[in-house]
């Protein structure tokens, strides 16, 4: 038993260490675009992610208790899924530059989760349900997708405001558009001109994808998270129906999740409008993630209710 527990803790240490070193490497890559930093950070992200899933499995195997029934376990899955979703999206969109932020947030979530580790606890009767194996991973995965969307939104906003400053300084506001295929997602001429003139910030901004491309990635991440949180709310309602007799009880966790769902629903509706797509929807994405944090942690910790499983 102790040997298993040691394996569990060892895997956790490997994950946290991988995330911290990986985050540093990929943050440095974000600023320098040195390929060796990416080549160091990405494998570390993979190692940390695999170690985390292994740790959750080992914990389940040795205790026989589904490991996601407390904040320690669910934050662990949150960190692992954030990294996993990021890895898939980064591979798909060549977006490794964002990895430092994702890994740093994953490491913080994991380290915070460890502070909630009270050891092995049998599940209370309401949590002894097959729904725990369906509802919890889905909801946590939706939060992870929203974390990835948040990171790309922050990068979008950084680039947007930096570009706006450069454009304001040069007095240019125009979108690029040249070539065989009109390049609708290119950088602004002001940015290109500033970079050509040796402006270091502009040169660095040019290493990032265009705002339109960042916006598409944010949309894709929200498009993962919104159906997941919808399914999560539905499965949670089905579980509540089975456990308490009502699929909706206006419990703080339920209603906070509903608020989160509404914000991302608003995001998707706004994204259909040209005038709102981009800057405004990315602010909505940032606000949405703040609400995710409140729903996930704030409600569990500060507000008592049916979901107050703090340990």
């Amino acid at each position, binding site marked *: 038993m102790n040997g298993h527990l040691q394996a569990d803790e060892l895997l956790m240490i490997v994950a946290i260490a991988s995330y911290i070193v990986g985050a540093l490497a990929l943050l440095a890559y974000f600023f320098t675009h040195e390929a060796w930093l990416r080549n160091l950070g990405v494998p570390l992200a993979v190692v940390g992610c695999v170690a985390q899933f292994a740790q959750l499995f080992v914990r389940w195997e040795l205790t026989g208790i589904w490991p996601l029934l407390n904040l320690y376990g669910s934050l662990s899955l949150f960190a692992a899924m954030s990294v996993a979703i990021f890895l898939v999206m980064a591979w798909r969109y060549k977006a490794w530059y964002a990895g430092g932020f994702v890994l740093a947030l994953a490491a913080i979530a994991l380290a915070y989760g460890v502070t909630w580790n009270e050891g092995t606890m049998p599940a209370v009767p309401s949590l002894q349900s097959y729904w725990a194996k369906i509802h919890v991973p889905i909801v946590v995965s939706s939060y992870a997708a929203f974390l990835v969307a948040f990171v790309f939104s922050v990068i979008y906003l950084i680039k947007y405001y930096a570009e706006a400053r450069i454009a304001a300084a040069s007095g240019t506001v125009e979108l690029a558009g040249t070539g065989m295929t009109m390049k609708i997602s290119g950088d602004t001429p002001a940015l290109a001109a500033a970079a050509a003139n040796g402006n270091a910030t502009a040169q660095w901004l040019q290493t990032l994808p265009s705002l339109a491309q960042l916006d598409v990635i944010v949309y894709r991440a929200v498009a993962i998270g919104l159906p997941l949180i919808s399914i999560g709310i539905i499965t949670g309602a089905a579980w509540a129906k089975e456990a308490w007799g009502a699929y909706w009880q206006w419990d703080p966790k339920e209603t*906070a999740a509903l608020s989160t769902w509404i914000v991302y629903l608003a995001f998707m509706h706004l994204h259909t409008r040209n005038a709102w797509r981009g800057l405004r929807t990315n602010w909505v994405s940032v606000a949405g993630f703040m609400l995710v944090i409140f729903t996930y942690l704030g409600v569990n910790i500060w507000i008592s209710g049916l979901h107050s499983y703090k340990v």
Partner: protein
Amino acid sequence: MVQKLDDYYADFVRTFGSVLFAVSLFVVWGLLTLIGVIVDQGKDPSIYFGSYPAPIARAILRLSFDNIYHSPWYVGIIGLILLSLTVCTFKRVIPARLPPLRPVTIDRIPLHASFELNGDESSVRARVESFFRKRGWQLRERTFDGTEWTFADKFNWARRGVLVAHIGFVIIAAGTTLYWARGFSGDTVVVTGQSVEIPQTKMILHLDNFAYTITPVMTKGGMVYQPTDYVSHVTVTGNDGVPKAMTVRVNHPIDVDKTLYYQASYGFAMRFHVAHNGTDVPALSQRVLLEGESFDVPGTRLAVSYDRFVPTVDRASGMPSADPRVNDPAVILSVANGGVDEGSALVPLHTWVDLGGGWRIVPDRCLLYSGFQYRYDPGIPLVGIGALVLVAGLLISFYFLPARLYARVDPGPGGRCTVGMAATTVKGYDMFESQFRGLVAEFSAEAQ
């Protein structure tokens, strides 16, 4: 008059059919929901005055924020959202079918490309059509002013995704309404060995016994007494009049005549031996009190309240212990005289308490009781179907991007043709840019 009504109707449709108006309603809905998360719901007004400054507490009560989910604001905003959803569905979603086949100015569409290819017009057109057909695009040709256009569509059916999601939302609302109209719910408490009749169904619920399991666990923060099982063994007599033995656990409700019964709570009922001048008072001694219940002492202004059962008293401190297992039980009794609280005491079981005037009571026997919730909800299948339809609509909307490609072939000099190509989608150009680039690159390589 008619003109004025028409104007009002047009204004109504314009407002409620606007996406930004719908989003504004979402924002209000989200804010009201958040208020309900932050402000405790359904509490006594004194709780709010105790928790907030008086002006805020007054505002909470006056604006019904203490019961926000049933307030006119909340019901109203959901009603407005359903109205907006309906208008949007008919004004925007249903009309957004296949866009008409008409020529476009290719260069003015941001996603466009052109190629010079060898071959006559018909062979080049055949190559264009073959290229798209192989990739699953649905092709249509039309001639406008002597120029033949090729229109290629992909995932056109996915334009219905938003409609499907809206329909799912409406089905959920219908299921919820069905419960309000036809369903019922309630809760009841049964003491071991006793029966209750459920008023709505006339079902008889007899509690044979109730058991719970508490597992002490040593954690890093100290000893935790974790409940791990609550189980009620009951005998139910439904519409068929046949008693049936059944077991109710958390997460395992029982179904009797389509009404579900859930394990909800438990506690300790108490029988007190009440004596006056040494003589038993059967009317009081045979009563079983639940926690929170009280009885009046005859001929006096005294009322005795059974506040709480204490499973284990800490022998060292004489105070209630954290251990919820029944080891050294006691009860907390409080006494009021003429409605004025006289204080409370922790009284071990089988210990006499002298109330004065010759009255003495002793907590004599504890009995477990089990709390049940019951619910008949004919709307559940509809809500389930609506939820599935809603998710299907979201998935269709997010993962299948309907796109339209426009292609025209213009003959040029020297046996060559110019192929112009442009693309539009329902989600803007950025979303399709990389795919369009890929198509252009493939076509360029394949058609040369």
